């Protein structure tokens, strides 16, 4: 049962990623593409964070900082029944970084979109392509 659920989770994450990926490559609207990118990336974040999840674990923040003394420092995941199990902090760290990267990319992309709209009057990729092509044609005619 649990395994089946876990597999379902993995696959759901993949479906989410692919939904974002599809928006990125199939939609002509530039804003949509950026939204797609963020969905795609969020999918990747679930994947990473899912890797660090430990059954019965809690967030990797030591709960009683002053109580545990040296004799009981062994709080390895699943090592001793009484101790608290923590999830793996590393994927969280990686994903914090990745989220920042994601929002940075998004901001830059959106700034580009604003400028593109200013210059082209459209944020649809096919329109922009058409305008550019027309421009090149005119260039050739001029010669």
């Amino acid at each position, binding site marked *: 049962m649990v395994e089946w659920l876990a597999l379902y989770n993995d696959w759901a994450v993949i479906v989410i990623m692919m939904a974002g990926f599809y928006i990125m490559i199939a939609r002509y609207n530039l804003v949509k593409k950026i939204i797609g990118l963020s969905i795609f990336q969020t999918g990747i974040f679930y994947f990473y964070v899912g890797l660090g999840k430990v059954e019965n674990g809690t967030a990797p923040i030591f709960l009683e900082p002053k109580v545990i003394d040296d004799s009981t420092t062994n709080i390895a995941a699943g090592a001793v029944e009484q101790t608290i199990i923590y999830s793996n902090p590393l994927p969280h760290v990686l994903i914090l970084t990745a989220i*920042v990267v994601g929002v940075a990319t998004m*901001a830059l992309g959106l700034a580009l979109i604003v400028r593109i709209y200013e*210059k082209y009057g459209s944020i649809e990729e096919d329109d922009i392509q058409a305008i550019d092509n027309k421009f090149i044609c005119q260039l050739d005619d*001029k010669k």
Partner: protein
Amino acid sequence: MLKRNVQQRHRVVQVITKFLIPMILLFAFYVQFHGDFGAGGGFQAGVVFASVFILHGLIFGEARTRLVLTPNTLRVLMSLGLLLYAGTGVVSLLLGGNYLNYSVLLSNPVSGQHWGIFVVELGVGITVAAVMVSLFYCFSSKRNFVGHISHPIDENELNSDG
């Protein structure tokens, strides 16, 4: 996204905002400096901190916010944050450790780590807050587009492009 003369129309919201802002600020500082003990850290705090100004901008008009936090200050702040982070590493280099080895910052390695993390997180917080506020400024400034939209074929551009 901003409506002019908001002040007259949304006085209630403004009053509430005035109450909210210090609280959010407090929360931002909490997230920043309590990140060692609970969830949070420089990045999250920076975003929350920025949201104070974004809120201010949304409610009181971005022009006013600009007077509180000028673009030039932002530019310097975002640079300083990064410099603070990278500079901490350089200090540890100068003190004889590897880059970003906070243990050498103080005589006690563990408190060195504490201080190092504190400073570094502060750097992250400053940069993130400054960048986020300037993003808000950039995306909300009034831009007079109508004259700027190039027509599909711009004769001038034709010439310049060859």
